[in-house]
């Protein structure tokens, strides 16, 4: 087995023992034939220094646990190729959220915004015995929306969310809002639009597009936000 050295500069902070955060220079040997992703290298690093703390679970880009800031850009460690990264690889926690420890951030604010848009189908008509029918075209409207994994890469790269995390829903939450607006089975479009018609909740988005740039699932929150804005305009006219 030929190994390869990977050099890191990692953000470290354990409130139990560190007065303040610092950057740690550290390197690790990986086997490039099997350990190809950034997460593989971090797991290896944790064998060397078990105090390094980060979240991870599925290791295939579907659970949304291991979002972090990698060489200045938000992404998922488990689907980021080591070979694509300039070394030393600078790894930091997602920006804009309070750091709990090392790469682990407190996501409360992010989920609060997601919950605020009532993320569930609202349909108060009596349910039929069978499935509610939906045409293939109508179902297609949900593609590019329902696949969100709530990783927070987008919202934590959005300047508007950094400044107003308590008031601006943020790209992930707005993408979810549109997911339900676009669902033909949902009957609450007008309440959803009322709720978002607010100088902060929706209109803090200035179409800077950072969110689109970083989404690891290649979703497009800006487009969804645009569609919500269109619906609001249509509703007035």
């Amino acid at each position, binding site marked *: 087995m030929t190994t390869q050295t990977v050099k890191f500069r990692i953000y470290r902070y354990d409130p139990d023992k560190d007065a303040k955060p610092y950057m740690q220079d550290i390197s690790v040997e990986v086997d490039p034939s099997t350990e190809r992703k950034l997460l593989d290298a971090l797991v290896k690093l944790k064998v060397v220094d078990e105090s390094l703390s980060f979240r991870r679970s599925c290791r295939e880009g579907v659970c949304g646990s291991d979002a972090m800031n990698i060489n200045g850009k938000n992404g998922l460690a488990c689907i980021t190729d080591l070979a694509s990264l300039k070394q030393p690889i600078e790894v930091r926690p997602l920006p804009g959220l309070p750091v709990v420890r090392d790469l682990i951030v407190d996501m409360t604010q992010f989920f609060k915004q997601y919950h605020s848009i009532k*993320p569930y189908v609202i349909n108060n008509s009596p349910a039929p015995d069978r499935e509610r029918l939906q045409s293939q075209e109508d179902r297609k409207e949900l593609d590019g929306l329902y*696949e969100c994994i709530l990783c927070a890469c987008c919202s934590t790269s959005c300047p508007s969310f950094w400044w107003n995390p308590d008031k601006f829903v943020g790209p992930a939450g707005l993408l979810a809002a549109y997911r339900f607006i676009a669902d033909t089975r*949902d009957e609450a479009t007008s309440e959803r639009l009322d709720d978002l018609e607010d100088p902060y909740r929706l209109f803090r988005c200035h179409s800077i597009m950072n969110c689109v740039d970083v989404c690891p699932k290649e979703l497009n929150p800006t487009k969804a936000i645009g569609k919500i804005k269109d619906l609001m305009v249509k509703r007035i006219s």
Partner: protein
Amino acid sequence: MKMSSIPVRKFDAIIVGAGGAGLRAALQLSEAGMKTAVLSKVFPTRSHTVAAQGGVSASLGNSEPDHWHWHMYDTVKGSDWLGDQDAIEFMCREAPNVVIELEHFGMPFDRNSDGTIYQRPFGGHMSNFGEKPVRRACAAADRTGHAMLHALYQRNVRANTQFFVEWMALDLIRDSEGNVQGVVAMEMETSEIVIFQAKATLFATGGAGRIFASSTNAFINTGDGLGMAARAGIPLEDMEFWQFHPTGVAGAGVLITEGVRGEGGILRNANGERFMERYAPNAKDLASRDVVSRAMVTEINEGRGCGPNKDHVLLDITHLDPEVIMSKLPGIREISIKFAGVDPIKAPIPVVPTCHYQMGGIPTNYRGEVVVEDQVVKGFYAAGECACASVHGANRLGTNSLLDLLVFGKSSGNSMIDFIKGQPKDLPELVMNDVERSVARVARLDNQTQGANVNEARTAMQRTMQAHCGVFRFNDMLQEGVKKILEVEVMVKNTVIADKSKTFNTARLEALELENLIEVAKATMISAEARKESRGAHVRDDAADTAENPNGRDDQNWLKHTLWHREGNRLTYKPVNLKPLSVETIALKTRSY
């Protein structure tokens, strides 16, 4: 630590686990107005149900005729007759209801042109009692688990379910009569230990695929529910039966769903031959998983593997319309490009059988009640992959697990509601023995200054399981495996961590998880060594195919469930329930596809 200083939080019901099973149960309880706490090691939508790809089975008959009785037949046959037929009937009959309900909850299923739920063919799904493949797997592209988990979480948000996110349950609490009183749990961010007391406790902690070196399972699938149950004296059922999924990406372990073969994918060996035609002339690439995995390993062992090391076979979909791949298998294409470095539109995907699913678990009936020696353990329930109802027997049919989560999540929720309603309003006094044992486990890790490294012990366990208890099993290897795994256990009891921080200490969490994994590994190896036949996913070379025992299955001696007891590594057995609820027994038969 003073026991009296440990905070106690009281509920009607506690659910440990927020995957598909836990969330489905939670919904039942929350909507019935029960005060319910759901604990999870991760934010609910990060549970491993999110990774399920192919579909959830139900005989909706949206594209062609189907019937729950045919589904039941396939499940019994798939289980190699080890599944309990009452539970299987219950599950297959309930399937259309729970899937329709899920649609009403907002699940974004794919659709047929008439607007009904889209269904695709899957391994072992046949019409008319094994005649020909049928479209039974209800799917949302190849992201069915993701769509389902999010829909269930969303519905729980609507129902105001109370979640304790990033809380790890450490141990089960039982009183002197064995009744369950709740769990001891640790808040991961602060390391605070709290007692959760309730009238009814459900385990929905998922699988333990991480006992093997190569697995489709997530890092968090460490069998915590099984470890906790075993430490509390509950035996584990049928732990020798592990499903090796035919198509894990070679080298990476990431899963490629059977739905790929459902959509027309073909397995080929180094000669380009569609070898499944030889092993399963009828169902071919869509034979049951154990059958396909063994065929693949046989091809590789006989020198017809692909690649420089001849160590894998190829999954070919290059003949499919790229449009179909893009619309029905987008996630697979993404995985293949990211983890195998090939675009399946242009080149076949290298695959090998990979540990995937645990058929065994905490013994329950179809109401989700935990049952030990014919007695219900009062206040204790289990559902999902950590439970053994037993609907999967010796081999699970694809898409029957997501179904299991919905059906038994719901039924255990209902059982809990009934039980809670019959209990006195006030909770009984807590018995602290189990709490003390749990606190001592954490204290040991905090105080230990020398000992075994957690990563080394875990690696030793995973290598032992992989080498001694894989797709094909051998008597001498199993015997040696038992010895080795007991040696690893000694290491696990003596692990040391240097990190003693109170803040989100993942080193400590991993050490605690390893204490659960090792219970599962012991149960598996010891149960496998003892079962001297081949059945479903458990195949040994000394139980060969004979006229008397076709495929090596020995119904005379081994048509029974294994129960592994942690105390003394004792094994007992109990009969398989061959009696369905309303229909005739599906009679024993040799299994062929």
